[in-house]
């Protein structure tokens, strides 16, 4: 049996996504920039994709920009907005548990003379609003925060954060990395006062190499990619029609079935957490309830190094992620995110992440739990001394 429980790394495309991607590669393969029929036809896919996605967010379609994925979206949002607004101030705020695609552009901006505050998180991965309030100052121009933490599934208080930020100064921009939230939770930027939102298609059963950045019409931002002037000159490069069409199809399916998917995911999560709790000495990092994403369960298995457990599961057809990437016995470059949670070294080294999708079955979860139950005593016997 096979159990793919690594859906926060990537997902399998749906049939309908494949169908539209193939169609826009093989039949309607025009370049939207061309003046002839083929181009017009291709442009129609692009427009429809934009409309479909805009509808899921309840925003205007002209506020959706296609990118090569969330890394580009994050880079663009942070560098483009910081550069365009630097006369208003040079202070940026983020959290200590962001993805590298947020942290590294911010490090770059620090080198360019910006000041960055990194908000700490509690043992469940949540920032404190009080810290945010204290960090905001007259020089602040941008706050960037992930909606759902990719390693432990914590949902950050995005709505409350936005209120604080806008109360302090409505001009401060609020960027949200929505990679693990979009398609799993309702995300309405206007209602939440999010100015920019980064999303990637391949986390929601769409193709790789495509994503988008929602940019509120009022936001001042510079383009990063210059060239042929596509997407109103804000993001040059031949339009990725198959990607955009595939992403829109995936988004449509995700939001049409959001309620049933969420119910299914919550059931899987409950089964997983209950099952894990029954195993001897397992420490679960994720929580139940509204402060945690329905599709991520992170847990530590003290006494077994995560890589070893990962490969042992792999041998039985179960695919998961290691919370920490151990490399050798000398250096253990443990996940920065888990470190932020202030876990004991033993837990850091033994954490696995199980992540589900709407297509994950109860049987896969049960199989995974049964396999863990069988493997753990054996592996613990041979732990390093």
């Amino acid at each position: 049996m096979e159990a793919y429980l690594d859906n926060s790394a990537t997902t399998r495309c749906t049939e309908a996504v494949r169908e539209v991607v193939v169609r826009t590669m093989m039949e309607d393969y025009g370049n939207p920039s061309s003046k002839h029929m083929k181009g017009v036809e291709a442009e129609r896919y692009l427009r429809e994709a934009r409309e479909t996605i805009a509808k899921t967010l309840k925003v205007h379609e002209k506020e959706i920009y296609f990118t090569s994925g969330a890394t580009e979206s994050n880079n663009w949002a942070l560098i483009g907005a910081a550069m365009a607004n630097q006369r208003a101030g040079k202070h940026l705020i983020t959290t200590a548990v962001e993805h590298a695609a947020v942290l590294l552009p911010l490090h770059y901006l620090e080198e360019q003379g910006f000041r960055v505050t990194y908000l700490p998180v509690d043992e469940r991965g949540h920032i404190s609003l009080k810290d945010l309030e204290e960090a905001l100052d007259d020089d602040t121009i941008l706050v960037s925060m992930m909606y759902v933490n990719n390693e432990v599934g914590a949902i950050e208080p995005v709505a409350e954060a936005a209120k604080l930020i806008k109360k302090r100064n409505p001009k401060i921009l609020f960027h949200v990395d929505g990679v693990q939230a979009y398609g799993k939770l309702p995300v309405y930027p206007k209602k939440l006062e999010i100015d920019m939102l980064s999303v990637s298609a391949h986390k929601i059963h769409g193709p790789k190499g495509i994503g988008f950045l929602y940019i509120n019409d009022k936001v001042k931002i510079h383009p990063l990619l210059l060239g042929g002037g596509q997407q109103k000159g804000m993001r040059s490069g031949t339009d990725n029609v198959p990607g955009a069409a595939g992403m829109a199809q995936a988004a449509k399916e995700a939001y049409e079935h959001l309620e049933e998917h969420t119910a299914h995911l919550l059931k899987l999560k409950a089964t997983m957490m209950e099952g894990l709790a029954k195993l001897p000495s397992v420490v679960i990092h994720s929580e139940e309830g509204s402060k945690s994403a329905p599709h991520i369960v992170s847990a530590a298995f003290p006494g077994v190094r995560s890589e070893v457990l990962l490969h042992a599961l792999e041998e039985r057809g179960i695919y998961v992620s290691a919370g920490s990437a151990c490399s050798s016995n000398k250096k253990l470059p443990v996940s920065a995110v888990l470190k932020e949670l202030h876990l004991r070294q033993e837990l850091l080294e033994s954490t696995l992440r199980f992540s589900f999708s709407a297509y994950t079955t109860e049987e896969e979860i049960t199989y995974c739990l049964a396999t863990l139950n069988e493997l753990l005593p054996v592996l613990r016997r041979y732990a390093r001394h």
Partner: protein
Amino acid sequence: MIFKTILIKYGEIAIKGKNRHLFEDALVSRIVHALRDVEGEFHVYKEQGRIYIDCNETYDYDETIQALQYVFGIVGICPVMKVEEAGLRQLGNDVIAFLEHVYETHQQTFKVVTRRARKSYPIESMEVNCELGGRILEAFPEMKVDVHDPEITLHVEIREKIYIYSKIIPGQGGMPVGTNGKAMLLLSGGIDSPVAGYMISKRGVRLDATYFHAPPYTSERAKQKVVDLAQQVARYSGPINLHVVNFTDIQLYIYDKCPHDELTIIMRRYMMKIAEHFAKERGDHALITGESIGQVASQTMQSLAATNEVCTLPVFRPVIGFDKQEIVSIAERIGTYETSILPFEDCCTIFVAKHPVTKPNLNAIKRSERKLDEKIDELVQTAIETTEIIRVE
């Protein structure tokens, strides 16, 4: 490209007496092998104690030279302009054309070295040197003769045709692979063993290899890393039969039964035994390891002696007296270093005791091994039977 021929200089082969033709034939075949994927058509042949490569019109010069630099046995690679014999006047024209093509500026010091391999050529070497030197000075007034330490040494070899060359691009040296038997390399994912393989292969030895993996303690990626390393070594050594042995059960069994400070030594003894099994099966003449004295606990003199003791084949350790930095330099030069330092667990680092024995007592080790009697033969047999063999080119 004016170089239509490449002259191959080889060193040690020339002194191998009656076996010389064997070495030359091996070198020719290694060169043919090295050029098989290079753009162009090549004719490799021996003539009067030299190896030549004739190249067609459209061959890729840079790619050709690069490929030849992987061939053991080649000391120097000389791109040659080959001309017909048509009198001394014409030879002067040819030499001037050569210098025009090969050098951008013409202010260097030079000397001409003529060799008459065809003694029937009517003019003496010294006379040819003078004549050609004069023509060069006439054509390039800023060039100067310096017979002691010239910047350009222009070689003119008079054979059936006349060969003109001035550049000798260094080769790897060593002996052509296949002229000195075959050996089994114990390959890990580390820095040392690929270097050991390279060094032995440089002495003309063909390679097989054995890698021990221990899933789930080592990953698919760790195994891929070793395949990649074997591939990099194979660029020099030619194809390698890589034996991938699943060592997990043996390791766990030793862990269960033996004192933990002896784990590494006992484990290595079983690795040697299994590697030797495959070596004998393949007709290899020796085992090769990347050990260097004192580098880690299992590489003290006493530990090496203890691992050696299980083998009947000789065990060669080409980097035995090298410092880590010296090994790293070679690894960097031959292109294995970057792969070697990729951070994947290899099976030796997993079951390492905090304080492993550094001066193992052979009797004590053997006593501990007796605790394995019940199942070890069966486990070794299974490991051998389930070994995966990957042919790495």
